């Protein structure tokens, strides 16, 4: 059993946390929030989730954006992706009946 485990360990160690991968992981998180905000806005539009849930998702997304923006990888994320987050957050705010600019600006 030791050789497959050693192989797994080696693959894991070699594949561990280069700056490019950290940037890709941050972009991954951001894409996930873009899709979450869009799916929640769609669900609000057809009434499959309550408004108070939509507000929780918006708050969580804004908190994640703030946390991501503090990381060094943030600047390596494509500007189009950051714009995409901004527009999906504005869309979610509108679906909740809030002004679009209540979500602030994605740095």
């Amino acid at each position, binding site marked *: *059993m030791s050789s497959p*485990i050693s192989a*797994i*360990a080696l*693959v*894991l*160690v070699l*594949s*561990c*946390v280069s700056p490019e*991968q*950290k940037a890709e*992981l941050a972009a*991954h*998180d951001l*894409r*996930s929030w873009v*899709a*979450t905000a*869009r*799916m*929640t806005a769609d*669900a609000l539009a057809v*009434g*499959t*989730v*309550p408004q*108070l*849930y939509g*507000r*929780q*998702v918006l708050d*969580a997304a804004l908190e*994640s954006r703030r946390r991501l923006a503090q990381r060094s990888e943030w600047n390596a994320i494509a500007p189009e992706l950051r714009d995409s987050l901004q527009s999906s957050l504005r869309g979610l705010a509108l679906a909740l009946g809030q002004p679009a600019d209540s979500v602030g600006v994605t740095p």
Partner: protein
Amino acid sequence: MSKLLKIALGIFTSIGGFLEVGAIATTAQAGAAFGFRLIWAVVLGTICVIFLVEMSGRLAAVSRHTIKDALRERFGPRIFLLTLVSDGVINLLVLAAEIGGMSLALQLVTGISFRWWAVPVGFLTWLLLWKGSFSLIENGVSLLGMVAVAFLVGAVMLDPPLNAMVRGAWPSLPTERPVHYWFTAVSILGAAISPYLFYFYSAGAIEDHWDEDEIGVNRAVATVGMSFGAILAIAVLVVAAMVFHPHGIEPERYEQVALLLTSPLGRWGFYLFAATLLVSCLGAALEISLATAYSFAQGLGWNWGEDVRPRDAARFSLVYTVMIALTSLLMVAGIDPLKLTLFSMALTSLTLPIVTFPFLILMNDRDYVGEYGNHWIGNLAVIAISLLASIIALVAIPLQLMGG
């Protein structure tokens, strides 16, 4: 009670007991990140837990010993203390995750932060233990856990591709993000092979006065109940693979996970998700609290039993009281429940050999199980899966913590 009724009730409670915050969170993560590719981890974990649960029931039925008191008697205080500390730490983290899960379920439907709910749900859990009977906890709450069948309904309604599911049931190497893949795999294994499950089961067998006649019932309940429980866990993974994976949603917060059932079941799906999370976490929180109190009491020779009045088993009751208070406060402090869940499940995998190896020695000791000793297949399966889970966890946990 007829044997058939016992089997049916046992199977229902096993199904309800299998799916808890760990299983929901890890399988949802797996489906969202890797589609159907990690179904094998649920299958592997289920094979192991079937063997372990069956063994724990058999040990109790044949020797009239729970695992813990047999461990203390057979190996002496050092090994017993090692398992006690290891289980104690893991159970504390998992209980915090369950309290967090219940609190999050209430946050989803009320909008009030989970931190405000942690103490009330902790109190509810404690009250049920203080006032309730063993059968209420074993049957009542676990039966309510059948609400989790909503995931199976959702999975069927989404019409998943069977070929991809069958391929996912076969272990495969990751094609991307290997650290996250293996970390998720060991988290799934840890959620499936939670030691508190078989400690609770063996203590329950003693509380229910099992003897050799129950060995057939025990085998049926362990095999069929855990298998159906695993089907529900796979259903969560399938729903996540169908709903989240195509959109690139990988939940880092429970708020995101709540969208899972809205695609197949609409608004009902949202409330059924919250109900499943609430009830399954409550059932698991009760079982973990009791399992830990059982472990202390059985190993240290205290009076114990859920049907014994708290004043007659004061130290036993004190253990679950302290556990619940501590874990509720952890949640009040604002620890991220989803991250805590995934981490505690991976940690469970890491410590599996500490728990399973001494137990296997017991199950092969004729002084305890007589002619009902283990078959070599059970020994081999548990050793191989425990070791595999532990070694992968040993590598994957630090790398995941380093940001891999």
